[in-house]
């Protein structure tokens, strides 16, 4: 029987070009639809009990009317030295062989330690069982499980899409092509500001962008080694 493991494991990463991002939040909507993320009441949202795996931060510079705006989509950075991982008492979050920071929902007991230790505040907690306004519960993605209340969740880099592409590639006895895996946010970005790919492949688009002069990482000084790379706005 053949093994399911490729010879050289992928190391998935993402590049986000802040010069291209228009802050339209199509990525946020696509992420909600793809990953069965529940919706909060306005009252609960006002208490900070919202679930988003990706958000768009806005930075304003200058006084009105001479304002410059910078939009920055922030999702799980899938850090190589992830601060969320060592604090979990039940090992519900760990690094998988492909470099993804994975959350195992069945193991999670909801201690909240991981979210408290995440400098990017990208983890979201299910305060209640998730709910959707009718008829949106009919559009659930069957490839993604629905997380119950009391469980922490976060961006998976759309692991269900990664798995599917890897299986298709395996069925066709070929390697995964660059750009073949497209997480929901990347797929939906109208400005093509987001690029996803294998950081282990030196010829991939993400690897080339990662070597760009504009490339930075969010809060790199913390030593978290994020796998999401931002291309700063050109001055």
């Amino acid at each position, binding site marked *: *029987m*053949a*093994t*399911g*493991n490729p010879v050289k494991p992928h190391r998935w990463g993402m590049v986000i070009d802040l010069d291209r991002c228009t802050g339209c939040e199509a990525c946020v909507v696509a992420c909600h639809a793809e990953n069965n993320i529940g919706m909060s009441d306005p009252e609960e949202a006002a208490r900070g009990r919202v679930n988003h795996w990706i958000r768009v931060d806005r930075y304003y510079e200058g006084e009105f009317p001479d304002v410059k705006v910078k939009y920055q989509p922030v999702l799980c950075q899938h850090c190589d030295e992830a601060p969320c991982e060592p604090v979990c008492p039940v090992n519900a979050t*760990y690094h*998988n*062989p492909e470099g*993804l920071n*994975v959350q*195992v*929902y*069945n*193991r999670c007991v909801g201690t909240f330690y991981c979210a408290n230790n995440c400098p990017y505040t990208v983890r979201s907690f299910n305060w209640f069982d998730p709910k959707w306004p009718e008829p949106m519960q009919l559009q659930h993605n069957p*490839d*993604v*499980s629905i*997380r*119950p209340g009391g469980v922490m969740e976060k961006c*998976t880099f759309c*692991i*269900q899409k990664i*798995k599917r592409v890897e*299986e298709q590639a*395996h*069925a066709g006895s070929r390697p995964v092509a660059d750009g073949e895996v497209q997480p929901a946010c990347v797929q939906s970005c109208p400005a093509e500001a987001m690029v996803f790919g294998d950081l282990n492949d030196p010829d991939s688009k993400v690897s080339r962008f990662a070597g760009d002069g504009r490339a930075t990482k969010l809060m790199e000084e913390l030593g978290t080694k994020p796998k999401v790379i931002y291309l700063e706005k050109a001055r």
Partner: protein
Amino acid sequence: MFSLRAGAHLSEIPPSVSIGLQAEVTFAKLLATSSVLCTVKHHLLLFFSVALVVPHVRGEQPILFPHSTHINKVHLKCIDCHISADTSDAATIPGVRKCMLCHAKVATDKPEIKKLAAIAASGREIPWQRIYGFEKGAAVKFRHGPHARHKVPCATCHGDMPNAITAQPLVKHNMGTCITCHRQNNASDDCATCHY
């Protein structure tokens, strides 16, 4: 009013339906006293004959489909009916039209085939009962395709179906079953292989 469905007794009907039914029957009797409203009464009868389908007990299949006959005598392969088992996520259950490809002519006098023909004529699907599945909250995604590609025999998970009658869970599955097999065959035992 009581000839709602052949073989359906009030005792079989779940309590919630039965209470509603009695209320409706009293209402229908009132309606029946008035000859003017006879068309309404007729509509009510029609409504009952359609809406009252007694649910099957879990695991009890609507038709005694003999897997053994189809595999041993007709020499069908699993994949002939469960056509997506080697490529897709779900193995799939064939539609009633597939059964009728043969059974429009074959063994038409047998009582189970008569049941089948009746379902086919009604334009509905056979209400097969699901026997395998994951607990709510298991957060497991199983895909048949990759397992078939790695030549895992159907019997590893589904047992001795060639000698079974209706679909039944011959093999009890839990995470240990999966993990043991994955480790023995050098497949990934990363949590995120199945849980996401």
